[in-house]
């Protein structure tokens, strides 16, 4: 059994396997390096990076919900200059495929970070985060309007040759429309989904539990929503999709592949099980084989309409 798990993406971006650490759950790499074999990952998407440092939101910043996690970090980050000087070198030294998640309050700020990252050795791709629910201006609102999403991507495209993915918000009526807008603006890929906007109540103190009031919901609870968005977007655009949302096992990865994703990102589960991404990567060939696939590529989109479904016994 030789199962090819490599992934070929636009502009020559290749991953040795489809499992990427999700932005914001893996810092800039060194923290988890004690537990995770970073070199074995398909890639690492770093915490969102802005032109200037951002302070983030008041605490509490995380709250547990039924099989979900609400977070309201607020994109705290040291700014792009400090990132390049102090943080990027570590991941570059690990030979990680580094995806820089970029954020801004304005179209121009997105373009600034994109321009700054261009030709930086060690930066393999950009992920334009127009979907973070945890900041007041910018952030998600860009991802909730096709025109604004287009504008951000267009500006980024003008300043970089890097492969660029746009990260979609599930908090919109028609994710497929946003995907089409950024495809038209030159996006090479889509990543989806960012977190769902949620709220928890701290009954004792009679107030929203998070310092930032609402937060972003991640974890297994959102997996069905994530699969739906991937499935819809896969039918709306012709560019590859990196799927995520609640992935915790190698069979979860296969579900995302079948729904139309070419690769995946893994976030919240890492907090419970730091080594889980490595375990998934080890298990994936076996799981693919078991369900009759000879490669990751083979599985991509097989549950989309128009592929002959394999109907079997049972019901």
């Amino acid at each position: 059994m030789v199962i090819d798990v490599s992934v070929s993406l636009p502009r020559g971006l290749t991953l040795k396997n489809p499992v990427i650490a999700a932005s914001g759950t893996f810092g800039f790499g060194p923290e988890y390096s004690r537990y995770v074999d970073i070199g074995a990952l398909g890639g690492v998407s770093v915490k969102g990076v802005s032109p200037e440092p951002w302070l983030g939101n008041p605490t509490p910043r995380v709250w547990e919900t039924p099989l979900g996690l609400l977070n309201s970090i607020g994109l705290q980050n040291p700014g792009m200059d400090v990132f390049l000087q102090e943080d990027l070198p570590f991941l570059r030294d690990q030979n990680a495929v580094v995806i820089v998640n970029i954020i801004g309050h304005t179209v121009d700020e997105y373009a600034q970070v994109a321009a700054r990252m261009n030709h930086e050795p060690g930066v393999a791709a950009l992920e334009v985060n127009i979907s973070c629910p945890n900041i007041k201006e910018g952030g998600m609102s860009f991802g909730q309007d096709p025109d604004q999403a287009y504008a951000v991507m267009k500006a980024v495209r003008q300043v970089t040759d890097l492969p660029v993915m746009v990260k979609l918000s599930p908090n919109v009526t028609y994710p497929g429309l946003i995907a089409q807008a950024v495809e038209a603006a030159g996006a090479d890929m889509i990543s989806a989904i960012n977190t769902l906007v949620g709220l928890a109540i701290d009954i004792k103190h009679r107030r929203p539990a998070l310092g930032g009031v609402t937060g972003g919901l991640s974890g297994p609870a959102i997996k069905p929503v994530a699969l739906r968005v991937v499935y819809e977007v896969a039918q709306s655009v012709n560019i590859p999709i990196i799927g995520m949302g609640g992935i915790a096992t190698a069979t979860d990865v296969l579900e995302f592949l079948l729904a139309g994703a070419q690769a995946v990102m893994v976030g919240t589960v890492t907090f419970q099980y730091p080594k889980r991404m490595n375990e998934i990567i080890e298990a994936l060939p076996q799981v693919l084989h078991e369900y009759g696939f000879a490669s990751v590529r083979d599985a991509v989109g097989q549950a989309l309409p128009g592929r002959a479904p394999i109907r079997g016994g049972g019901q």
Partner: protein
Amino acid sequence: MADTMISEQVLAPIVENRAVAPDHVELIISSAVLSQAEPGQFAHILTPGMLRRPVSFSRIDQENGQVGLMFQIVGDGTRWLAERRHGEVLDILGPLGHGFAAPDPTKPWCLVGGGVGVPPLYAAAARYLHRSRPDVIIGARTADWVLMAQDFKDLGLDVTVATDDGTAGHAGTVMGPLETWLQDHPDGQVFACGPTPMLAAVSAACEGRATAYVALEQRMGCGIGACLACVVKAHGKEHAEYRRVCTEGPVFAAKELIW
């Protein structure tokens, strides 16, 4: 200090589960790695919830490769932990964070603990006793909930107790006994751990007098510095900035922090 220390994901068997007070349990677990901990560091423990649970080390027995975890049952995670029995294995990340540095042996030393803030102070007392003998002030809601008083006495230390309801020691909070101590030892050093409002009061009381070190609690995600969930506001070089309780803390010099 802790920077150079190991931290790993360990599977640590439970050696003992003992009730130490109503709704308070101490687990003694066996792990050579964890027994390298500094006092004030913590274990990040896998439970059935979505996040691990941070608990400080109540005892650190390097010789026997054992540590203690003393906690109050306050929710699902601690309830699950309290039900773990001898021989069951806990999945722990640790030891994590920066603990209490050794006290300055030339200055008087006081430990001020409230509720489940007491255990890491006991670990500090036990570790640094050869350098300095602390005075100990323990606060609790009620007599039953005074933690580890006997353990401190077994180290030969004087213990002052304060209970909110006056059922043991001074009636009231730890702040009364601490004020007395500060008046006697204006150049002292104070290690404190307990509820945040108590730490704020300790910090204010020490200001301009003793040097205070406080061990904070904050809701955590990763526990290892990657997610930025657990921050606390501190005085930066120019502006206010956030520091991570799980990494730069949980122990901070009180004067670093913005209360």
